[in-house]
């Protein structure tokens, strides 16, 4: 009953939950009205051995092997990991370290696949069209072996959260179609073009976790997407508990915890997961990928990528095979000369600068933006003194005090930064966006987080070293006492026998000691 009342109140606009802070950046969704185009298959695909959060994979193929599209080419090592699949048919030409989209510019071992142009698919996987009758565990294994990871950009292995936990039953599945980052239009286009696939994916998720109700969350700057999802929902008779909720546009509404608060008014506490309050959040792209994995038996080998930015003449939302080099994607949009441009991997708020264009598209590549330097929203080269205006605190969606946090991180006072809850920061960039003094706040937080993680690693290593060192000392001590005991025993046993020979065992002992 209270839920109904709340819903009614929300309808009437009396009671509206909304996360704190947030900003309203210009959206620049220039590709929103253009249908998704399929990018040409690149001659060479580069597949890093780790495209998700968690442990890296190890290659299953050798140089020279022929692989088919969808064939597993690297298997996961460890639980928090998903395998990697070949994006097209072809031959493995190299397995070596190569740069990946990462702020460090460092590389990982990658499998290079030379495409043979046939694009032949691996058909060993059986479609599970009868998923409604299947045990969720089978579907979960399917999600894992098809390499699904959150396609909203966080790339957390999807199968991990698709689980029924008796202590935390999932009541509501939230489908995240917010896409609050400027420029990006993947989820928008997907909801317009593949609403039925998305809904089926959502139904599979609800079946797997045993949820009865579902919410499809869309911001009000995408009314056509909401309309498309509503229409699809009306056609799908079995999805009674699902409805579309249109939220007022505000960044970072697409962030999981913020979205859950906006929709349900329930707060996910720090250090806890949405499942602890009975909610599961899934990106629409991941939902569609789950549909493909289960119903069409197609592992994750392609994703939508928005290639845009004010330097791109001909921006588009592209359906791209994983492993496609970024350079060729820009080239396909008529951008060959990349000198003097800022290239971003992801959106402008949370994305990272690309150090090189030779990196491949990976599972986390939501967008590739080429921006003219002068139009970059914040060129944080001239950091000015904090004037304590407090805009950053107002904009922070997790109630932090960014200016104090930055002060603490800057002067390496990490214990204080942790007291100010540095690790609750979601790095959404709202504070940096509003800062009139151009302070690169999020950059300071990333620095602080990195340093703290480094210190923790060192502490763990030091602790292990200490344990080994102490064990060694104990062992040496034990050996010494044992030797002493043996010597005295030998003396005792041999001494009374013959006084003349008593020197001999002692000599033996001495040689033993030397050895």
């Amino acid at each position, binding site marked *: 009953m209270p839920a109904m009342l709340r819903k009614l109140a929300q309808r009437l606009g009396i009671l509206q939950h909304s996360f704190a802070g947030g900003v309203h950046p210009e959206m620049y969704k220039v590709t929103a009205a253009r249908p998704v185009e399929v990018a040409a298959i690149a001659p060479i695909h580069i597949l890093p051995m780790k495209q998700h959060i968690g442990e890296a994979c190890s290659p299953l193929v050798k140089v020279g092997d022929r692989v088919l599209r969808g064939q597993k080419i690297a298997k996961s090592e460890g639980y928090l990991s998903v395998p990697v699949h070949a994006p097209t048919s072809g031959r493995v030409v190299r397995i070596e370290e190569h740069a990946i989209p990462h702020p460090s510019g460092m590389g990982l071992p990658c499998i290079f696949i030379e495409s043979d142009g046939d694009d032949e698919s691996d058909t060993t996987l059986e479609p599970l069209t009868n998923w409604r009758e299947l045990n969720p565990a089978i579907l979960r294994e399917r999600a894992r072996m098809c390499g699904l990871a959150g396609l909203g950009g966080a790339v957390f292995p999807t199968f991990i959260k698709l689980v029924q936990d008796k202590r935390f039953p999932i009541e509501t599945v939230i489908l995240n179609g917010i896409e609050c980052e400027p420029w990006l239009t993947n989820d928008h286009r997907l909801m317009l073009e593949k609403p039925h696939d998305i809904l089926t994916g959502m139904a599979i998720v609800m079946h797997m976790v045993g949820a009865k109700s579902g919410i499809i969350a869309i911001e009000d700057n995408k009314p056509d997407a909401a309309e498309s999802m509503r229409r699809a929902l009306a056609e799908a008779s079995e999805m009674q508990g699902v409805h579309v909720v249109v939220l007022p546009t505000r960044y970072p509404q697409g962030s999981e915890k913020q979205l859950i608060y906006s929709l349900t008014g329930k707060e996910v506490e720090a250090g806890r997961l949405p499942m602890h309050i009975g909610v599961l959040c899934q990106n629409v792209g991941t939902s569609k990928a789950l549909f493909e994995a289960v119903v069409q038996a197609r592992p994750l080998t392609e994703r939508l990528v928005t290639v845009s930015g004010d330097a791109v003449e001909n921006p588009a939302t592209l359906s791209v095979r994983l492993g496609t080099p970024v350079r060729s994607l820009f080239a396909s949009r008529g951008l060959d000369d990349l000198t003097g441009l800022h290239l971003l991997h992801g959106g402008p708020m949370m994305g990272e600068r690309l150090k090189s264009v030779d990196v491949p598209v990976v599972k986390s590549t939501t967008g590739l933006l080429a921006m003219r330097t002068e139009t970059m929203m914040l060129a944080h080269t001239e950091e000015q*003194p904090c004037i304590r205006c407090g805009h950053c605190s107002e904009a922070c969606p997790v109630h932090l005090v960014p200016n104090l946090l930055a*002060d*603490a991180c*800057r*002067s390496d*006072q990490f214990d*204080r930064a942790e007291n100010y809850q540095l690790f609750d920061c979601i790095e959404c960039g709202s504070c940096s966006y509003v800062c009139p003094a151009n302070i690169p706040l999020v950059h300071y937080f990333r620095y602080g987080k990195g340093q703290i993680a480094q210190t923790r690693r060192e502490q763990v290593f030091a602790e292990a070293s200490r344990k080994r060192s102490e064990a060694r000392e104990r062992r040496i001590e034990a050996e010494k006492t044992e030797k002493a005991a043996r010597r005295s025993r030998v003396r005792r046993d041999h001494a009374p026998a013959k006084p003349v020979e008593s020197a001999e065992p002692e000599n033996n002992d001495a040689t033993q000691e030397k050895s």
Partner: protein
Amino acid sequence: MTEIALILLSAVLVNNYVLTKFLGICPFLGTSGKVETAVGMSFAVMFVMTLASTASWLVQEYLLVPLDLEYLQTIFFILIIASLVQFIEMMIHKTSPVLYQGLGIFLPLITTNCAVLGVAILNVQQEQTFLTSALYGFGAALGFALVLILFSGIRERIEIAPVPELFKGSPLALITAGMMSLAFMGFSGLVKI
């Protein structure tokens, strides 16, 4: 009841030992670098000051006055304070070695904290009763703790703020203390004793 409240209010805010009487400046500047140290120091001073003011009142009333030994006042009071400080030093060393390290020399130096002796002597001069002198000692310690903790909080903030090199450290600390003193002047009209 009103009297008790007035004594506390006056000792904590109006006649604050640090900011209006300028006693006990040494630990005020010395141990205000970190809030934790300041809190530890505050408790140590609170303990010493309250006990010292009551003990000194007892000594004055039942030993010095009957025996006509008022001229030994200072020696006796210092003896009391020194013993108390020794006691609290051992206690802190046992209970919190880190605080012991942090307070360092300032812990034994409570002995020579003029605020502590000042409270004891002023109590005697003002001819307080036993209860009021205990209260006065506690209030004075509370006032010391208040400004010390406030000041250390401000200093922690200043320390990470980008201030001109010239003002870094003690200069800015002294300026801050001066400003706090000015602020506490505002309390002077609050109660009339």
